[in-house]
């Protein structure tokens, strides 16, 4: 018996139902077990592929996290990567309860260095660093493969930090005075009218402004690295004691997926007047890209048809005479299936793609996807609220207390070529159509509700029902 000393095993039955061949598919499953069998879960869990119910195959790297004791029941999550053929099934054994088992030392593709908020994360697909003050992505280097040679592409604007989420507040002159607004990277300047200077009525705060947000959770292992940070969105120079919105951001980096999962939850504890709420803000070096590309979801299109990508030139050479600000007015809907900045030019072929997984929220005004260009950067954001004329009090949008905006997106790295669109669409379809996993035997005790875990799994399967993309 290969697993002598292990007393119990849970069986996972994984079924691929979306007819997509999957390589390195992430499984992240919550299991409930009796607490008297859970003394060594941090060390003793082993995940083994099985050929049959009683035929073991090979052990695969796994990562145990969120071990939580609830009286007689203990829950934990176990994550691993498996290959799964289209329409195929896989039986997996999860062995546990071996008090003597040492922690396994799996070697993987995920290399994490650093601590606190500042990390360097290196995978076969990218290398990123996070900012020591905010924890936001700071440098982003994509890796592309050119016939076995890895090319590195620095995509960020040097010296900048990813804004992540931006709220443009309408300044409240009773409590804050009308403050001059320091330019928010990429956001269009307010429109002035007339010759007299118009006081700027807005002040913006982004996750890049965070100063040492609280690290709520962190998990690292051979399958993924996750860090969740939380803090108030306080405009620079404003009174920090006010009840500013609370923002929580989770980054998750994976060993086998060419993506970074970004989950955000923005909560307004009290009424607020705003000009914009921008989620999933990604700001990159304009010099590194030739086009912005998007993939709509057209409800009126028959399912037997294909969606067509749209393309806008963003590069600073051919677009040098284009005005800064919004690159495509407000034509882009809020719920694109995915969008990307790409470079199609020889030896620069690369893409960074945002695939939408889920979003929810309350108040909206001109909700949409917005693309913004300035001299050095190109930026996309998904905004539930977006006022363009921010120099008028009539345009302030009231966000009621208790409003929560929640977003989950993946930032995916890839080469670019003529088949790129199909590959990205397949990836989006895959992420939004996870394999079905059932756990056996069913736990007979009182299992608590499954704790929230940000996963690269979307609720946009409807966006991929049509015959494909081109």
């Amino acid at each position: 018996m290969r697993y002598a000393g292990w007393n119990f095993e849970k069986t996972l039955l994984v079924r691929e139902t979306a007819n997509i061949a999957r390589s390195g598919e992430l499984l992240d499953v919550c299991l409930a077990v009796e607490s008297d069998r859970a003394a060594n879960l941090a060390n003793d869990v082993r995940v083994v592929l099985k050929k049959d119910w009683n035929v073991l195959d090979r052990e695969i790297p796994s990562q145990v996290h969120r071990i939580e004791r609830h009286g007689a029941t203990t829950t934990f999550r176990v994550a691993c990567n498996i290959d799964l053929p289209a329409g195929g099934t896989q039986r997996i054994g999860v062995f546990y309860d071996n008090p003597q088992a040492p922690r396994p030392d799996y070697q993987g593709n995920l290399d994490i260095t650093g601590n606190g908020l500042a990390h360097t994360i290196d995978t076969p697909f990218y290398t990123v660093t996070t900012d020591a003050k905010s924890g936001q992505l700071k440098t982003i280097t994509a890796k592309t493969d050119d016939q076995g040679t890895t090319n590195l592409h620095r995509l960020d604007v040097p010296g900048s930090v990813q804004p992540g989420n931006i709220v443009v507040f309408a300044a409240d002159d009773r409590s804050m005075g009308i403050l001059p607004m320091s330019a928010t990277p990429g956001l269009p300047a307010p429109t002035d009218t007339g010759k007299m200077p118009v006081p700027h009525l807005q002040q913006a705060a982004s996750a890049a402004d965070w100063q040492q947000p609280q690290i709520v959770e962190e998990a690292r292992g051979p399958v993924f690295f996750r860090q969740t940070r939380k803090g108030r969105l306080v405009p620079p120079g404003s009174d920090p004691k006010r009840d500013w919105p609370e923002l929580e951001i989770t980054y998750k980096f994976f060993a086998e997926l060419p993506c970074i999962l970004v989950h955000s939850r923005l909560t307004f504890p009290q009424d607020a007047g705003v000009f914009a709420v921008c989620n999933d803000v990604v700001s990159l070096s304009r010099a590194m890209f030739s086009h912005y590309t998007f993939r709509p979801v057209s409800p009126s299109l028959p399912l037997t048809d294909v969606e067509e990508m749209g393309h806008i030139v963003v590069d600073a050479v051919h677009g040098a005479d284009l005005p800064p600000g919004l690159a495509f007015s407000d034509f882009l809907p809020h719920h694109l299936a995915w969008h990307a900045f790409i470079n199609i030019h020889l030896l620069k072929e690369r893409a960074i793609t945002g695939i939408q997984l889920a979003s929810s929220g309350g108040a909206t005004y001109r909700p949409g996807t917005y693309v913004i260009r300035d001299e050095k950067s190109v930026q996309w954001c998904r905004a539930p609220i977006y006022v363009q004329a921010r120099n008028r009090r009539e345009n302030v949008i009231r966000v009621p207390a208790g409003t929560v905006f929640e977003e989950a997106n993946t930032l995916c790295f890839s080469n670019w070529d003529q088949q790129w669109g199909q590959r990205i669409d397949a990836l989006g379809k895959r992420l939004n159509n996870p394999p079905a996993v059932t756990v056996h035997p069913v736990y007979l005790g009182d299992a608590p509700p499954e704790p929230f875990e940000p996963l690269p799994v979307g609720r946009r399967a409807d966006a991929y029902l049509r015959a494909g993309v081109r």
Partner: protein
Amino acid sequence: MMNTTTMVPFDPTGWQAFLPFTVSEPAGIARQRAVVDVAFALPGAALAPEGADLRVVHDHAGQLRELTAQFYNLEQADGNITGRVAFFLDIAAGASESLRLYHGNPGAKPPSYPSSLTVMKAAAGPQHYWIENEFYKIETLPKSGQIWHVWNKRGSNTSWHHNEWAENTDKGGDPCHWAPNCWVGYPDRVTNGYELREGKEPDFFDWHYVFGWDNPSSATIRGPVFFELRRWGPVWPHPEHTNANIRRDDKQRIVAEVVYRFYAGLPWLYQSSRLQTLEDLRVFFIRNSQFVFLDRAFTHALLMPERRPDILPTDEVAPAVIRLMARDNLKPFPRMQHSLSNVLPAKLEYVGFYNSHNGDAFTEFQLVERNGNVHSGAPTYRNHTTLLTELHDWSVYFGRAFSYTNLRFHPENATFLPKGERYEEENICLIHRHENLPATLADLAARNLELRNPLEVKMPT
């Protein structure tokens, strides 16, 4: 205000009567050479030959000045004259001007107003015209009368047309105005679609294009203010680009009407079209509002969305300015026709192109767009969108496609159009000069406001 209309002193001696009316400016913008086009009725009046004794006179504090005017659709019935009159007027923002329509002067001769609009009937076909004013020169297709060549006299003064078919290259190429058109599909026909790669003309659909008309019914109105060319009739499969060997019946399936109106002294022309199905059809698409240009003619596109009702009146709606890709072969996927589709609404405030190098610019203001079902009144059709199509070394155009499915030749994607379906549009096509983007955007904003807020005429009934 600079006077841009021709006015000469008017002597009312000898005129029997006049009909007073007023013209008001409703939008708070000063207008120059604004078009006033209004129906009138003159009770108890007798129509002189050619309407020789009709005049429009501006009454400015008792000073009477005659305006260049064009009377048309004149009829005499039951002792009354009815008709329409078009003239230009300069008017201050918010102002109201008093005018008079004089009639009844047996000694009056038909007026002879100067006009910068010249119309020359050409010899290559029954619908062949040269139309020219100080801003543009336009040539129509000899057989169909569709706009064939366009020269921007304030720009490059080279024709914007492209060559869709090689065999037409030495014959002047193919038209700028392609709409309306419809590909009627026969998806259940055993076709040569299987052999398309061998370069044969497909026979699983018929091209019904108005530019394939061969001398349709037509009528013209000429005068010092405008020249109107109106054509209508059944739209048959395009003779040049439809397989002639296919057995076809002689049933009329589609009728259309296309109207152009060209003005003196204005850089724009009016264009409308109406397309109606005469029987139930399966179609691969219908397009209107489609002007097709040489890919090298323009460098940039402008797209101005309509102000949605959910946008605050104090908020801004800005146009998108995008770089075209076909000219410099910048398309990521060169064989895909569309750069943009499925996100642009079917109706926009305006769409346009400009060339940042030579100053050429063309902008279409979309005034009316009706995609209605005449039986149910319900709006129709999936995938109703404006698309931008670009192909390097080929063409660039915006089109409004009611059913331009991406896999449109697949039988399952053909769209059913019921008998009596109707599509209508009215556009203003501006042929202008681009100097710099701020100036162009300001000019388009002002023109858009003006076009959507015509002068108000109060005429006694």
